[in-house]
């Protein structure tokens, strides 16, 4: 993680608390920054071996697994629900605990499917009672496959399913999708403005350093 990501990490930790507060939190994030913010969120939420679930709608879950591996974020306690891999021609490989959906349509039936999956006595994939956080990547993409009404039903039931015991960050671009933002932040759900995360930083002039010749990047 770079300096910007670490600053974001500290900010999120400050806002969400340690351990992170439970319940839904709506986050206003520019679309271009979704993945970055989610990665930082995952680093924070998986700290101390916390369990969680990541519902992948925007791209096959392997991409997030690859990112987590690359950034040395332990995903051993993370369960993926992949809603798009079944109709993607992608053959990218990754090792993770995952359950697949037929597709992202009829998303309002997902909470019931999660409860059913968790209740299977022989399930090695997902235990709702041990879950500390739940993330959907991302709500905006759900609208490509479902009506606003269906997404709203899903959101309400999804939040109810976890009975206020888990952290549910909802990453939404308010400027791009005000309706969705208002829907998610209804019922007094708290929201956090991270829309300035893509604002250019103020340039500071780094000091020069002498690097020894045998160090990678030095004089050869």
């Amino acid at each position, binding site marked *: 993680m770079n300096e910007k990501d670490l600053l974001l990490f500290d900010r999120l930790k400050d806002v969400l608390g340690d351990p992170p507060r439970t319940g839904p939190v709506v986050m206003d994030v520019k679309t*271009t920054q979704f993945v*970055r913010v989610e990665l930082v969120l995952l680093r924070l939420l998986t700290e101390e071996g916390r369990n969680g679930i990541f519902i992948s709608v925007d*791209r096959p879950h392997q991409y997030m697994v*690859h*990112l987590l591996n690359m950034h040395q974020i332990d995903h051993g306690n993370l369960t993926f629900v992949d809603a798009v891999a079944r109709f993607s021609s*992608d053959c990218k490989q990754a090792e993770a605990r995952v359950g697949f959906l037929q597709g992202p349509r009829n998303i*309002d039936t997902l909470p019931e499917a999660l409860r059913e999956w968790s209740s299977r006595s022989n399930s090695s994939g997902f235990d709702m009672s041990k879950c500390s956080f739940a993330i959907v990547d991302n709500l905006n993409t759900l609208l490509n496959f479902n009506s606003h009404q269906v997404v709203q039903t899903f959101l309400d039931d999804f939040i109810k399913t976890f009975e206020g015991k888990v952290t549910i960050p909802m990453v939404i671009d308010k400027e791009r999708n005000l309706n*969705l933002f208002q829907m998610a932040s209804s019922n007094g759900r708290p929201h956090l403005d991270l829309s300035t995360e893509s*604002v*250019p930083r103020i340039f500071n002039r780094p000091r020069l350093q002498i690097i020894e010749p045998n160090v990678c990047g030095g004089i050869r």
Partner: protein
Amino acid sequence: MESTDIGRSDLARIQTGIPGLDDMIEGGFPFPSVILVSGTAGTGKTTFALKFLAEGAARGEQGLYFTTLSEPTQWMLRFSSQFEFMRPEFFENEIVYEDLGNHLRGGDSAALLEAIEKRIAEVMPQRIVIDPITVVGEMFKDGYRQFLFDLTNRLKNWNATTLVTGEVLPGELYPPEISYAVDGIVLLHLAEELGARRKYLEVLKMRGTNHVTGKHSIDISRKEGLIVLKARF
């Protein structure tokens, strides 16, 4: 509940940085997407790519520039610094420059794909440039189509808009191997008229976009790089 009436979320778009072009494509390139910028030598492909990255950098977006030409960084900086829009600080921070030359010489397309993905996962860019992609075709004659299919498929999943440049010979429009796999094609033309060479830009394809068609005059200046002029061809 039956979900027949989908929400139809609009495509997210990012500004191209090319004055005049965003107006032709409903506000910018779709995000994420893979766009081919094609043209003969000297039409402004690299200038287009640099402006695209500089625009992102100025907006706080991370850029990643892959060169397939084995061009040293300082050489690249020497030319790009002639443009007023390119701040040297960008190349230490918002624009990461990566030479793929060694991987290309290795001759292993799977290893090249892996190297590209590894760097993307490290840098997490919102804007990627591969300049020029056609060199890869010359190095990997066998399996080039499969490589392009895998590359574009994966690039679309990295949550970035990728601009690949393709060099063609005079008389050709675009490299046919990649055209089917990309979401958009922007052509840069060079035409000799009344003894002078004039440059034009044409949006040939832009998925999910009601784009303006036809050739449009362009100019390249130090201040703004490539500009689409108002008057139509």
